[in-house]
């Protein structure tokens, strides 16, 4: 069950001030009182039985308009000479603001005690129904930035080989400053010339576009929805950016609208069956909600809800909802 909410945000570490601002921004976004490009949509996963906040996630409508959005574009350079028989393909990193104006799959945080019952999938994928419903609020392209590789001690080989020489600080400090929304120091300290990848350490080269082990599941989830590495990486840790056209996201493409029918006979969702669940959204911007139901609830044009489910979704018989299977078929 996802709805916009501010409860319990203080449980997110190190971010109180920023989160409060984000919240204000999110409320204004749902009310459409901000310019399109400044809107951010914040969703909360709530346990309806206990009113407990289980997690939050966000969508940015358009990145790079307030702060500058930096990536390295990973380009190919061919060094070839027929005369002496050389043909060598290397990579070059170009400091880039190319993703400016894309929408973004942003923050996701799930409370540890709720990491079960498909909650993670619901929280993350519920956003696709929002994108399917309100494409006019977003750009054509959407991206997600993945945490880059670092070892057990938190060392980022990419940072050690590149950023450290220019920023003269620890990776965690640079990351923290960026998190605070202070990106001026990037313009000031960042190397501006393209970086020849072969001049980085072997360790750094190996992690270009590679995610942190803990981020593998999130990456797999995005890929299953059609996201692909777009040749942009994080300037600090080399983590990949993945992207797709919103219209090509699996859950957007496959989602369908149904008329609501109310019935006590509707089967209850079994959270243990991975492929037996549908996400259903109420299609309402101001009171946006998504709920998991059993796939048996969907007929050809009608989606059958139990009265309690309809209440949670704020829908009545005859209203329309949008639904799609929680997971892609292949998985």
């Amino acid at each position, binding site marked *: 069950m996802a709805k916009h909410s501010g409860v319990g945000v203080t449980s997110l570490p190190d971010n109180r001030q920023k989160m409060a601002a984000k919240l204000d921004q999110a409320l204004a976004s749902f009310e459409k009182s901000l310019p399109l490009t400044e809107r951010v949509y914040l969703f909360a996963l709530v346990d309806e039985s206990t009113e407990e906040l289980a997690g939050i996630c966000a969508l940015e409508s358009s990145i790079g308009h307030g702060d500058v959005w930096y990536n390295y574009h990973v380009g190919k*350079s061919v*060094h*070839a*000479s027929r*005369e*002496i028989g*050389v043909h*060598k393909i*290397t990579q*070059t990193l170009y400091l880039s603001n190319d993703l400016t104006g894309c929408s973004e799959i942003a923050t996701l945080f799930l409370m540890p005690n709720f990491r079960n019952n498909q909650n993670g999938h619901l929280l993350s994928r519920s956003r696709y129904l929002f994108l399917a419903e309100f494409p006019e609020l977003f750009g054509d392209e959407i991206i997600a930035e993945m945490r880059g590789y670092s070892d057990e001690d938190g060392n980022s080989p990419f940072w050690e*080989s*590149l950023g450290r*020489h*220019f*920023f*003269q*600080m620890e990776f965690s400090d640079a990351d923290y*400053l960026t998190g605070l929304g*202070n990106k*001026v*120091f990037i313009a*000031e*300290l960042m*190397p501006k*010339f*393209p*970086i*020849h990848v*072969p*001049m*980085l350490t072997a360790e750094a080269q190996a992690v270009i576009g590679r995610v942190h082990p803990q981020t593998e599941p999130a990456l797999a989830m995005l890929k299953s929805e059609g996201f692909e590495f777009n040749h942009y990486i994080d300037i600090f840790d080399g983590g990949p950016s993945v992207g797709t056209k919103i219209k090509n996201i699996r859950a957007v493409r496959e989602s369908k609208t149904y008329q609501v029918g109310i019935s006590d006979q509707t089967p209850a969702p079994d959270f243990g069956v991975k492929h037996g669940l549908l996400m259903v959204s109420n299609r309402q911007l101001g009171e946006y909600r998504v709920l998991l139901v059993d796939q048996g609830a969907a007929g050809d044009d009608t989606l059958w809800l139990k009265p309690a489910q309809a209440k949670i979704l704020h829908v009545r018989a005859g209203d329309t909802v949008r639904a799609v299977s929680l997971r892609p078929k292949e998985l």
Partner: protein
Amino acid sequence: MLLVRPSTFSDLAGIERLLDDTDARVTTLPKERDKLSEKISESDDGFRGDTDGEGPSSFLFVLQDTDSNELYGTSGIDAEAGCGYPFFNYRLDEIVHASHHLNISSKVPVLFLSHELTGRTLLRSFTIDPALTKSDGFDLLSRARLMYIAANSDRFHQEVIAEIQGIFDEKGACPFWDAVGRKFFDMDFLTADYYCSMKSKTFMSELIPQHPVYVPLLPPEASATIGQNHPAANRTCQLLYREGFHRSKFIDPFDGGPVLKAQLRYTHTISNIRFKTARPSDVVGGMKYLISNQSNQDFRCVIGTLVDGIGDSIRISLDVADALNVQAGDDIAYSPL
């Protein structure tokens, strides 16, 4: 007597022997006979002032013992470095990375690919028999080039440069090359060096990495050799410093060796050069000078003693006159050793 004169085709065998013996790295002198013969032919055109509009001149000199006719060394000049094509160097510069907010300010050294030295007069192809390294012959062979330039100054750029060998070991391992060029040329230093002497320079434009190189990204053993000369080039550096050359911001793009630079007119040889009319005769005593004739095609330069004096003519010994092919009344140039 040791004599410096233009190379001719009859020097081919001698130069080959020299290159084999000295095992020197002389990028601009190929060991292959065909290529070497081409170089001599180009030089020939240069001395004859006959370049067929085929681009700027090159000059190759040899050091010969007039008694034994043995060759003991070579030296050369390119009237215009790059000969019409880009002459590649890295230029060492610094970029300031400073953050007002974070109170950080540091200077980051960066190597910029540069063609700035293209067209300068380039001293090159210096090889000498190791037995003569510590002799006057070394100075003669090197400085004779400046004597030639002085006699034909309209054909040369006012700024003169010399690339000095950088750091590499006997096996050809070169830390700067291994950290920079090798990653793109995909070959070891000696192979790249070999191609440089053999092929057109097109492959340089095709292969050399174009973006600036941030020095902190290089391994320390490579950055430590930036602008460092090979120990074998110490004598060359000393001579050139004495001539008034100084280190520039430029380094060799292959081995990172320094490029030395001077204004022709301020070099020791040229700022102290005098021109007078020769009076061959018996000469006793006096100071040692570089002495050259004023011929273009048949240029010759030796070391001999002179008593410099007032007036338009000067006495030179008969054997010097003979070696220089100079008759009484011909102009000669001389500069203190």
